[in-house]
């Protein structure tokens, strides 16, 4: 049924192919080109399997970094998150990049990763800067604090991995409860939105039109805004958000995420979905700008602010991060286009179990000696 629905859009000028060539390919190629340039500028040759990456100090083939970016961007994109929370433990435990520079390097990926998706969301009018503003303000204040915490209290890999372990367990729990009746009842707005969306998709399919995409009249409109609250309207629904609470959420998530070197979506999405029950289609209007602001302020803090104030250097490995980012952008785009056809009922618990096991191992390793190193 779904396959035949897509076939109706086939032909030589498939809209997805056009979108990829016009919007995604230039970004991916641009980031890949920057990675090559950074590698040459940093080492005078191309780092990879033979020459270690200058800051990371690890030998890893470039195709492996592209692949890591792709699979983490793809799998995380399918569950509505960015690649950071997967690529960071993979970089540390498999690629052996355990230095403090892994956090700012990961922030390069989380900063660039959402740009591909950003174009699509703007076109679909899943965009409201009033909604994103106060979360971003919180992240703007919180993420530099997080960078300081990472450099002064979490410099050693052992406590840092334990923090990552805690984050992975939070994410594992969120992934696993998403398919429970309790969570589905809690996010009633999400369910109603999905049902409405499915009806529209079926109507479009029967009319021989492209079955993906939101209706032409969809937009997230600001109804009222003040320093206390903000009211949004989307597709017949109206919802009010507390400005101080949004700012506080952005601040706390900003501290934790910048300290780890991830985008913060793994915390922001469950918090916003649980407190407000915001549908994912609307939530991206806030999470995408939030992740971008958090990543860039965290990165600036690691690269400029901290060295200037304290003399402690925490430069990222630019080529390493940019190679991963180019793969992650492609992975996130493929995920956004195929998400509707993936059975979440199996995928989410499976990803939840994987992240949970890694998280538990990280925490156990901090307290007891394991026969192997993770």
């Amino acid at each position: 049924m779904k396959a035949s629905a897509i076939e109706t859009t086939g032909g030589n000028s498939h809209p997805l192919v056009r979108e990829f060539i016009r919007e995604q390919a230039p970004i991916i190629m641009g980031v890949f080109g920057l990675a090559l340039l950074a590698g040459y500028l940093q080492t005078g040759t191309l780092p990879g399997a033979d020459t270690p990456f200058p800051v990371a100090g690890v030998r890893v083939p470039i195709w492996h970094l592209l692949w890591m970016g792709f699979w983490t961007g793809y799998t995380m994109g399918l569950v509505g998150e960015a690649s950071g929370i997967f690529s960071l433990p993979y970089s540390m435990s498999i690629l052996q990049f355990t230095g403090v520079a892994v956090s700012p390097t990961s922030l390069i990926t989380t900063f660039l990763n959402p740009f591909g998706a950003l174009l699509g969301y703007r076109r679909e009018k899943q965009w409201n800067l009033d909604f994103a503003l106060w979360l971003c303000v919180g992240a703007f204040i919180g993420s530099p604090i997080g960078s300081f915490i990472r450099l002064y209290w979490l410099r050693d890999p052992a406590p840092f991995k334990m923090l990552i372990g805690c984050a992975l367990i939070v994410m594992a729990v969120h992934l696993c409860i998403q398919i429970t009746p309790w969570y589905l009842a809690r996010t009633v707005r999400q369910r109603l939105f999905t049902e409405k969306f499915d009806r529209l998709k079926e109507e479009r399919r029967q009319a021989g039109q492209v079955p993906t995409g939101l209706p032409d009249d969809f937009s997230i409109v600001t109804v009222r805004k003040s320093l206390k609250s903000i009211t949004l309207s989307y597709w017949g629904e109206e919802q009010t958000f507390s400005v101080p609470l949004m700012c506080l959420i952005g601040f706390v998530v900003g501290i934790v995420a910048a300290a780890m070197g991830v985008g913060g979506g793994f915390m922001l999405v469950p918090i916003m979905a649980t407190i407000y029950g915001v549908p994912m289609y609307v939530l991206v209007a806030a999470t995408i700008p939030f992740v971008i602001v958090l990543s860039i302020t965290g990165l600036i803090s690691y690269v400029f602010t901290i060295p200037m104030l304290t003399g402690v250097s925490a430069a990222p490995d630019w080529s390493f991060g940019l190679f991963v980012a180019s793969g992650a952008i492609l992975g996130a785009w493929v995920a956004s286009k195929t998400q509707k056809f993936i059975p979440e009922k199996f995928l989410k618990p499976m990803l939840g179990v994987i992240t949970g096991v890694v998280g538990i191992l990280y925490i156990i390793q901090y307290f007891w000696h394991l026969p192997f190193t993770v």
Partner: protein
Amino acid sequence: MKRIRTAFFALIPFFPFVVLFVALLVAVYHIRVYW
């Protein structure tokens, strides 16, 4: 061409599992070669 495309879309639900399996193989390869 139409059959290939239909088969491709029918296989999409299995992609994440294949991707995760390949990621595991690549990780094992990296550990054996570079550690």
